[in-house]
């Protein structure tokens, strides 16, 4: 069924540009003043109140490292926590990608924030700090629980590490743990569709060819590192919003810009160690930290018991005194970033006191662009909704499909239409409608020019 499009409301989407505040370097005096100010909130306020009342200076986003770190000897913690203020049209997946995080990490750190329609002006945590997995620091190490990859370079002191968020296998097709290595690499790889996946797609009315050549429809993206375990790869993606999700068939996915760097810096034969460590304990500058990720199986307490053993050993053997109530709180909250747990350490709320506020960048890297409305193009009406936020959420999800399907909300008469498009041809509109039906179970209506 088709009908003429006659909307008169065209929303102009402007990306707000922030004038960067070139402030002086963060120094000890500022830290002390900050500490005194924040101590007045200690014990009475939740993390939201602390974030909202932090009187922090702003820094350019370039001033905080997101991927590449040097590890001082005996240190286990890299990076730092930051805070940023949401601007209009931001989504958490876009912010996550810009700051080298997965959707899992940013949403676990900000559980009360709407992933797709966060409120402009709200400040959120950017947990750009990580405890290194408890394993040999060599080659590529992937912690499935954190959905994070660490690539170690060199063997000197300090050791260099690059870290990237990853997407991993589903519960039905999990990524295996264990020691592997890279057997070969390929740029612009062809995807040879496994029989089981071909059958799945066939059943949902989306038959796949036996091979998918390089291009926007190839789920492997532009680079692939093949592992000695057959059919398991580390590769890019055409669905960047899937990084931080359990959405693959067992492979490891990275953002396109991250897999390119890994591809270039990881030789064939690089060891690859895939571990599952939801409870991480480490130290930096004499402070013990704990980082907890929600376990895949809440009923399995094996890893938790291991963590408590580690903590007791630390207390017994290293002279640290741990704040056990805080340990329990960190375990319960599972916020996914390092929190100081040794007594006498920073009294802040979940490490927020160590955060700095970042100026919002002019543009978020990889943020989907939405073409201007055109009256002589095809569209697909995905939904008409009474609630504008619901409509914006649906439009954001459609925009973040891989490949992108541009979508927007057009409001009139108190109702909000989610329109996918513009498309130059009916065929392109048909394809988009088919993808909406298969991937999102949306029966869209074609709207002709």
């Amino acid at each position, binding site marked *: 069924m088709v009908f003429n499009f006659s909307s008169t409301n065209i929303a102009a989407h402007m990306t707000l540009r922030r004038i960067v505040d070139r402030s002086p370097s963060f120094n000890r005096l500022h830290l002390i003043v900050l500490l005194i100010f924040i101590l007045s909130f200690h014990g009475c306020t939740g993390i939201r109140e602390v974030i909202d009342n932090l009187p922090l200076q702003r820094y350019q986003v370039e001033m905080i490292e997101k991927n590449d770190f040097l590890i001082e000897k005996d240190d286990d913690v890299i990076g730092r926590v930051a805070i940023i203020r949401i601007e209009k049209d931001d989504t958490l997946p876009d912010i996550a990608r810009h700051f080298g995080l997965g959707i899992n990490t940013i949403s676990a750190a900000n559980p009360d924030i709407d992933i797709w329609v966060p409120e402009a002006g709200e400040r959120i945590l950017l947990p750009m700090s990580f405890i290194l997995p408890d394993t040999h620091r060599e080659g590529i190490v992937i912690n499935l629980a954190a959905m994070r990859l660490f690539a170690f370079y060199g063997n000197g002191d300090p050791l260099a590490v690059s870290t990237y968020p990853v997407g991993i296998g589903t519960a039905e097709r999990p990524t295996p743990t264990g020691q592997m290595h890279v057997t070969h690499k390929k740029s612009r790889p062809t995807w040879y569709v496994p029989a089981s996946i071909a059958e799945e797609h066939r059943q949902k009315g989306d038959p796949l060819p036996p091979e998918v050549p390089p291009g926007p429809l190839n789920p492997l993206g532009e680079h692939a590192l093949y592992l000695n375990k057959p059919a398991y790869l580390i590769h890019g993606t055409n669905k960047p*919003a899937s990084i931080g999700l359990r*959405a*693959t*068939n067992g492979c490891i996915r990275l953002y396109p810009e991250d897999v390119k760097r890994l591809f270039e810096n990881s030789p064939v034969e690089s060891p690859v160690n895939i571990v599952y460590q939801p409870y991480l304990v480490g130290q930096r500058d004499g402070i013990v930290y704990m980082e907890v990720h929600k376990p895949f199986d809440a009923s399995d307490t094996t890893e938790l018991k291991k963590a408590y053993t580690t903590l007791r050993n630390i207390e017994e053997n290293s002279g640290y005194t741990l704040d056990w109530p805080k340990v329990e709180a960190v375990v319960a909250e599972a916020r996914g970033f390092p929190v100081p747990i040794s007594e006498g350490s920073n009294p802040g709320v979940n490490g927020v006191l160590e955060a700095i506020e970042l100026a919002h960048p002019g543009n978020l890297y990889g943020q989907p662009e939405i073409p201007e409305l055109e009256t002589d193009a095809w569209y697909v009406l995905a939904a008409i909704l009474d609630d504008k936020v619901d409509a914006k*959420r649906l439009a954001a*999800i459609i925009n973040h499909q*891989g490949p992108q399907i541009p979508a927007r909300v057009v409001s009139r008469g108190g109702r909000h239409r989610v329109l996918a498009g513009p498309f130059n041809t009916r065929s392109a509109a048909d394809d988009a409608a088919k993808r909406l039906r298969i991937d*999102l179970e949306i029966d869209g209506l074609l709207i002709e020019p």
Partner: protein
Amino acid sequence: MKKCLLLVSTMLVLAIALGGCATRRDLEEVQAREKAISAKADQAAQDAQDAKAAADEAVLKANEAAARAEEAAKNAEEREKIAAEKERIAEEKLRLAEEKLKLAEEKAELVEAAFKKSMKK
């Protein structure tokens, strides 16, 4: 004989005189007593009347108080009914809000599930 008659007559006259005097005194006494008694009676009557009036007044006041109490009880009952109705409406609103929230959460979960499913190969 004449002396006896004279004595008797004299005694009779004396008695009558004395008796007349006695009667007058008695009468005065009686009158005084009557007056006193009348005064007492009047007072008693007045007292009784006053008491009755007071009693009537008390009854009236009691009736008025009873009427007021009844009125107050009716008003309280009315207010209770209104409060109960308001509470029922508030509970209904809360229930509807909770249902709406639950539906919104279910919708959000479905949307998120659809999004995660769409992110698979």
